[in-house]
């Protein structure tokens, strides 16, 4: 994995927070509500906790070498998984014990972070761009555009998410992170498109849009400078929560053997191996499953906090 792509991904997770601060969601008092929301967020323990957790996970996925100097793929069969973890050996390779091939579970958990974060962030970015554009076009232009795009959304929505992704991925014999991201985004953009469409329809008839039109603003200017900032709030909320869902989806696919290949380190794949040994070595399951759950939890908590800050009904 090239290091620079990870660096590019890093700020994208921060983006919701920044966008919240800049873009006002409510039509009546845009700036103050946004500032309010941001101030509100900073006081929320839920937001601070999830934010710190996510920053930490980003750090781990960008520089796994900082946390573990062991090769996650190097197996030593003399270190069998029946040797129980030595939790006192903090940061040592045997901290979490060894898996069925004598590979350090700690190293695998650390290196597996990258795939999950990359897929979660990658799918979310793609889905937000594609789904957002579709929703914006359908909501703003209405009429035949709306009918057409909404039906296309319905068509994709009708296909079960995991099943569809499995069919797509099964066609690829060489699966990389990018294939998985593509397959999940291909089927996952519908939720964002629907939310965006709804938000744009509400914003479309606002006075400031009319004023912008009267001043002779072009369509793209109205869409991106006037409507988008006012319709983005619900999209940010859904996107943040969905990020966790995509991480689960990736690990589910890896668990089913249709995600990444066995050469790649991923939590889902490790959980799949661990499930064969749950009776005599539950710790192989515990650590990757725990990390996966904590990661998903962090993004769901972030989504919750953002929603509470942005939704005027809950204030």
């Amino acid at each position, binding site marked *: 994995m090239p290091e620079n792509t990870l660096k590019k991904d890093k700020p994208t997770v921060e983006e919701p927070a920044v966008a919240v601060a800049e873009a006002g969601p409510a039509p009546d008092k845009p700036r103050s509500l946004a500032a309010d929301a941001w101030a509100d967020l900073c006081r929320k323990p839920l937001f601070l906790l999830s934010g710190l957790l996510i920053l930490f996970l980003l750090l781990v996925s960008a520089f796994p070498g900082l946390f573990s100097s062991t090769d996650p793929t190097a197996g030593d069969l003399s270190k069998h998984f029946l040797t129980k973890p030595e939790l006192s050996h903090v940061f040592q390779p045997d901290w979490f014990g060894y898996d069925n091939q004598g590979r350090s579970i700690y190293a695998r958990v650390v290196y597996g972070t990258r795939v999950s974060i990359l897929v979660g962030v990658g799918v979310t970015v793609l889905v937000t761009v594609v789904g957002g554009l579709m929703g914006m076009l359908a909501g703003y232009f209405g009429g035949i555009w709306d009918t057409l795009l909404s*039906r*296309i959304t*319905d*068509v*994709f929505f*009708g*296909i*079960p*998410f*995991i*099943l*569809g992704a*499995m*069919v*797509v991925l*099964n*066609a690829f014999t060489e699966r990389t992170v990018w294939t998985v991201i593509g397959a999940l985004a291909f089927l996952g953009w519908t939720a964002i498109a629907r939310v965006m469409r709804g938000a744009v329809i509400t914003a479309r008839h606002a006075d400031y849009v009319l004023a912008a039109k009267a001043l002779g603003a072009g369509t793209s200017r109205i869409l991106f400078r006037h409507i988008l900032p006012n319709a983005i709030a619900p999209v940010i909320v859904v996107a943040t929560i969905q990020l*966790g869902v995509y991480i*689960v989806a990736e*690990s*589910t696919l890896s*668990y*089913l*053997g*249709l995600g990444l290949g066995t050469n790649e380190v991923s939590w*889902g794949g490790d*959980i799949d191996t661990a*499930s064969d040994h*749950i*009776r005599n070595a*539950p710790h192989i*399951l515990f650590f990757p*499953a725990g990390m*996966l*759950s*904590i990661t*998903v*939890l962090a993004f*769901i*908590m972030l989504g*919750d906090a953002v929603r509470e800050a942005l939704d005027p*009904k809950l204030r």
Partner: protein
Amino acid sequence: MGRYVIRRLLQMIPVFIGSTFLIFVMVYALGDPVAALFGDKAPDPATAARIRHELYLDQPLWKQYLHYMGQIFRGDFGTAFNGQKVTELLAGAYPVTLRLTLVAVVIELLVGITLGVVSGLRRGRSVDTSVLVLTLIVISVPTFVSGYVLQFLFGVKWDLIRPTVSPDAPFSELILPGVVLALVSLAYVTRLTRTSIAENVRADYVRTAVAKGLPRRRIITRHLLRNSLIPVVTFIGTDIGALMGGAIVTEKIFNIHGVGYQIYQGILRNNAPTVVGFVTILVIVFLLANLLVDLLYAVLDPRIRYA
């Protein structure tokens, strides 16, 4: 009402065609069913061409699709590559998954709505906080982890149930798999009910009901709950399709030979007729469940009328 249903059914047709065509293209264009028939061996070109012709695979994709749809409406879903009729597989698998989904939905509704009402009425108190934390934890533990853990605890360690389900899959054996399948949605139902109840508890009609001196129980069940259920019903409607399709993981863990199992095997073996047949039925179930939800709106909220 009748006209509304007919209009909705007509609107479903393009979506049905679109979804099935999409899955058809994904299965037939992305994979090569004939190569899959031969497994690891490279097929003899002449034989492969003959099979392609017999299976209608030498035609352009849209013609194949029309041919396939024509056959479906005559009740012929084609033959899986091991010689079994897809209709036989469907008849064997769908009742099992339907039972599993039913168990899951009942658990979701009973437990989810109860927890949601309890926590929504006590918003901000310790009961509410603990329910919220619990739902967060449940949502973040993926099904394939909770499934193995519960199977291990109940089926192996405490020996309370059979760890795997027998081929007949009676209701009694589907309770734990149903719980596993329901868990994540259960948490969502709880949260949706909680938010909705907490919002509506301050509504005028609740105050009126209280002022009339109605018993608390009646206010909650007849007035508050009925008005708060719309988002929950919407969620359950979309969830039924997701549950039936998403049962892959649960069915794999508990060795249930239902829809998810068949589709999983079908995908792994490139068994195109099985995959397309099963997904087609799933799409129909999904569309009908959504229609049912819209009709339920009118039952829950008398202000909604379908002319």
